[in-house]
């Protein structure tokens, strides 16, 4: 059974850049593999180990400009390949940038359909940058497949998949017929860092980038693009409590907390 795994080249949230007026410089923030997608790749590779088949990684560039980002998304996909995916296919096209969830879902589902038949499509529960957590479901509906989200355990048995969903208060075990889409949480496994050998090997694996016309798409209309992105200005006091010794620091801190009304003595 072949497994598709969806990987996002996410804005690296640890590398956010803004100008002196606090405007976020989206084009200058580097892309990195979205955290939970590493779990999805690792899970796909684990299932492949049990059932055989290929693991194919898919992505759509969602942040522009395309010419500058083409190499960055390739690096992200090389990481997915180093983690054990067998090949990678991506769409890089200025016509959809910056993409919204609906266009990303439309583009990914077309790319997947064009590439092959997959018994299971895995994705991270949400992306590091936008965290809207709805893409796996939107793709499933576009493909006409059943879907389960927030999996912390996946068992494939006899043409079906048993998914343990990690809900806030309980674990809900659901069963779906294959082919199916499943989103995974960060708790499903602990992906290992790829070894140097795996990284080197990843460059020999097939990687293909398409434009939207190459996968048979016209420029789609965005359903709900964001209108603006603003830097959150931290309104914290950022006061480092200093003193001659720890006793003095502790006393000053306690006084501050009493002043704030958050500690009572």
């Amino acid at each position, binding site marked *: 059974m072949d497994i598709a795994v969806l990987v996002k080249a996410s804005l690296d949230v640890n590398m956010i850049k803004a100008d002196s007026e606090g405007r976020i410089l989206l084009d200058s923030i580097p892309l990195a593999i979205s955290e939970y997608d590493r779990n999805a790749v690792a899970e796909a590779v684990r299932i492949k180990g049990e059932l055989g088949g290929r693991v194919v990684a898919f992505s759509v560039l969602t942040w522009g400009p395309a010419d500058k980002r083409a190499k960055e998304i390739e690096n992200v996909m090389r990481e997915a390949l180093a983690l054990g995916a067998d090949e990678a296919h991506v769409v890089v096209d200025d016509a959809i940038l910056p993409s919204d969830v609906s266009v990303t879902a439309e583009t990914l589902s077309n790319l997947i359909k064009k590439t092959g038949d997959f018994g299971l499509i895995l994705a991270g529960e949400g992306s590091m940058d936008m965290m809207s957590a709805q893409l796996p479901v939107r793709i499933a509906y576009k493909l006409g497949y059943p879907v389960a989200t927030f999996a912390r355990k996946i068992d494939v048995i006899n043409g079906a998949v048993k998914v343990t969903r990690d809900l806030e208060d309980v*674990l809900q*075990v659901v069963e779906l017929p294959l082919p199916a889409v499943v989103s995974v949480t960060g708790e499903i496994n602990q992906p290992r860092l790829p070894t140097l050998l795996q990284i080197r090997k990843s460059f020999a694996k097939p990687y293909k980038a398409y434009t939207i016309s190459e996968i048979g798409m016209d420029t789609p209309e965005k359903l709900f693009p964001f209108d603006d992105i603003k830097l959150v200005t931290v309104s914290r006091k950022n006061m480092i409590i200093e003193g001659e010794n720890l006793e003095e620091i502790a006393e000053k801190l306690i006084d501050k907390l009493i002043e704030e*009304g958050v500690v009572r003595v």
Partner: protein
Amino acid sequence: MKALVIGNKTSHLVDGLGFIQALSSETGVSIEAYGLLYGGGAEETKGFTKIFSMPEASPEAVANTVSKLIEKMTLEMVIAPAEKNGTEILSRVASVYDMPMITEVSGISKAGENTYLERAIMGGRATALYRFKTPMAVTVPAKKFKASESGATPEFEELQVIDGVTKVVEVLPKEKGAVDLEAADVIVGVGRGFKAKDDLAMAFELAELLDGEVGCSRPVAADFKWLGEDRWIGISGKKIRGKLYIAVGISGAPQHIMAASDTKVIVAVNKDKNAPIFTFSDYGVVADLYQFLPVFIKKLKEKKGV
């Protein structure tokens, strides 16, 4: 305009009603509120025209039932709790009708003629604004929008479940203590700065002195397994919104900071003066926690006279 609020607890309906009232006052559009409770009884919540109820079911079956209702009643908005089941159900409904869906709305703002829905992105470091238009699906965090429960008493109607292919095989309890971080006023957070599980006793002592709870960063729950996941503060863990958060030996990963950002006062104790947590704190103490905590606890006891 008609809006449907779904959820499996009465509090979900109240949270959604709060959002509807806030949106209505920003836009000047009057919105008629309908509710749908899946699982759990339909309690009377004033402010709703009608509350539908259905038995507990898979997210797919709930979504099918909601989709049918949208068609029948020409609903223009659907609102769900910003938790995992709410997110899946609403993503399904949004997919069926190709509707925009704004996950976890944190605020409503106006600029000129337009009303915008805001949500936190990039680990809480940025806010994205989306122009409000209908139809639209929205997930709403707990207690974010205060509702006034007044007006007519709702009618009730039971709905038939429209099943799908998803089978719920079993529901298992989660390993859980009696900790409810989301309701705690004071939380002492522990991170990788602690070298051994036994050392957490200091944090528990401090939390007890402050009538608080102990929470933790991801490695302490997920990697070291020193504490249960019910104590894990993070986007995928618990989101806290108390009066005081004291982060001890926590460097401050974006997911952790975002989940604590609704706290009134944040204190950080870390020996690394460059730790990101200080940027997100009101008060910082640059010190080794092993030296500072005993002194802090001793001074607190003196002040409290215990």
